[in-house]
């Protein structure tokens, strides 16, 4: 029953209600919130899938040696400049010495490692797509 007689606003069950005319759209399907999605997935099962383990193995196989290499290469510069300055003063090209060339080489080594990582990471993207496909595909 319309609580306010004379009010043209449609309300449930009143003669002016639009619903019986089929003008009301069904409720939109429920889109899970990030929290609901996270709760719906058995993450430890995903973590144990061969696809995911393969991804982690591939990442570790590149990232760990790369990190060790660039750290060693960088601190080799600092240690040799700090503790063997006379050796580093050896002139190589004209007056340009070993110290400067070693320092300059750090830039190129950093760029090369970055480029190698980008190449390797393209494979990680494919591998993680495989993990996602398995998660979303038929159980």
């Amino acid at each position, binding site marked *: 029953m319309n609580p306010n007689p004379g009010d043209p606003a449609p309300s449930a069950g009143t003669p002016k209600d639009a619903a019986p005319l089929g003008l009301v759209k069904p409720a939109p399907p429920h889109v899970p919130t990030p929290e609901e999605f996270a709760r719906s997935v058995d993450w430890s099962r995903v973590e144990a899938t061969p696809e995911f383990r393969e991804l982690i193995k591939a990442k570790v196989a590149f990232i760990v040696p790369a990190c060790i290499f660039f750290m060693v290469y960088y601190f080799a510069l600092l240690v040799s400049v*700090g503790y063997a300055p006379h050796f580093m003063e050896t002139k190589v090209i004209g007056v340009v010495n070993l110290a400067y060339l070693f320092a300059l080489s750090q830039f190129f080594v950093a760029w090369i490692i970055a480029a190698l990582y980008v190449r390797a990471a393209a494979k990680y993207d494919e591998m993680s797509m495989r993990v996602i496909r398995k998660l979303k595909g038929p159980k």
Partner: protein
Amino acid sequence: MSTPLVMFVLFIAITLLITGWAARRSSGSNSFFAANRQITAWQNGIAVAGDYMSAASFLGIAGLIAFSGYDGFMYSVGFLVAYLTVLLVVAEPLRNTGKYTMADVLAFRMSPRPVRAMASLSTLTVCIFYMIAQMVGAGTLVSQLLKGSHISYNYAVIGVGILMIVYVVFGGMLATTWVQIIKAILLMLGTLLLSILVLSKFNFSLAAFFDAVSHVTYTVKGHSVTKNFLEPGLKYGTGYGPLDLISLGLALVLGTAGLPHILVRFYTVPDAKTARASVIWAMIVIGVFYIMTTFLGFGAATLVGPDFITKNGGTNMSAPLLAQAVAGDVFFAFISAIAFATILAVVAGLTISASTSFAHDFWTNVIHHGTERSKGEEVRVARVTAFAIGIISIALAIVLKNANVAFLVGLAFAVAASANLPVILLSLFWRRFNTAGAVCGLGTGLAASILLILISPSIMGIDAPGVAATARHFIQRPAIFPLPNPGIVSIPLGFLGAILGCLVCREPSAEAKFSELSVRAHTGIGAEKATAE
């Protein structure tokens, strides 16, 4: 109006137009804090470079190389190599698991309130230290560059403060990003021009250039000396020098990946793949820039000379004075305007990351348990915080006008490396890591780096009478800790604190959520998506 002033005003006008454009497009949290995550790879890469190449890099390193030769170049090397840590370890997992701040990653599987409170404290500490160094530098620089136009230190500081408030409060992350991009492009352009002009003075002969670098004559304590500036040891050669150099290297390589204003940039791109590509863009820009510091610094040493620079404003004026020497007053004005743009952009970047952390971590998640009480509250709080941070920085910069604050940048890197990085790494890669470990690691790293700096030669030392106020030590006693850079002690302490704190108790819920964190960090499932405007 003097030429530098005209160029300053031009830059300010352009950036304000951008801020107006960004303000009209912007609405909602994703837009204010993360520019709707729609920044492209090259844009974000250049913006990262812009955020990173602060006045300390442009003016500071040019000055360091002009006065300490090769040893100054060590900073340049470290600043680039540091991006390998960002690229290989931090950027992608961070993008995949976080929303707006570094603390999002830490709070993922820990008890959120204590972890976020500590992470926010550490973020604010890093940002404010870094900002004061920039603001004091800005004041000194602007008042020196605009000599004769009656713009005093205080007005310069107030001007920079107000502009940064306007950028952040009205334009949010989108305006801040574009201010960074324009500044980075200007900085690269200016540096490139300056390098070419320096080389032209040597008839484009690298041999002649390096030859001059190997015989730089200047005055030390009244005696004229000639040194080979290509040889190491002018700054880190004696006493604890080599150890300090290694300590500095550690703070640079590990600290960059813990700098809050760099980390927030990775939330502005659509996904982890774009975050990766943007680091590559940043590495190209940053690498080229730091290689060119060779020409800036050595150019200033040979074409201007340390003696002349000392008499005309000191080390920080090396790059502008070099510009004046190679191409006259208009180019001097251009380079000065770029230095000014650099400072403005960096303080804006720091302000937005500090206010994001306060609003998102502290206000919403610590005080109000993770829910906004009304729509848009988080953004409103962030705007108010940005305003407050601006006022506080203006006040501190005016109070510290005559203080020697250069060490604050080093302190910011030390805190980032000792407090932030260990807990980011351990929470991403160690299943056993927990809340106690994160809180303890952040606390130890923060306390250790601040305490060690307080008792280091940066703060403690006995000055001869007559030393200028800007170079005086705060505490007139011999230093207790011998190294100006605390990293070599404070970083291991940060890791130790995190590991020991974690081993005290077990937290099954944190360990249980590691699977989810790991899968999401490495595959990007459920990562925050780009939003439409």
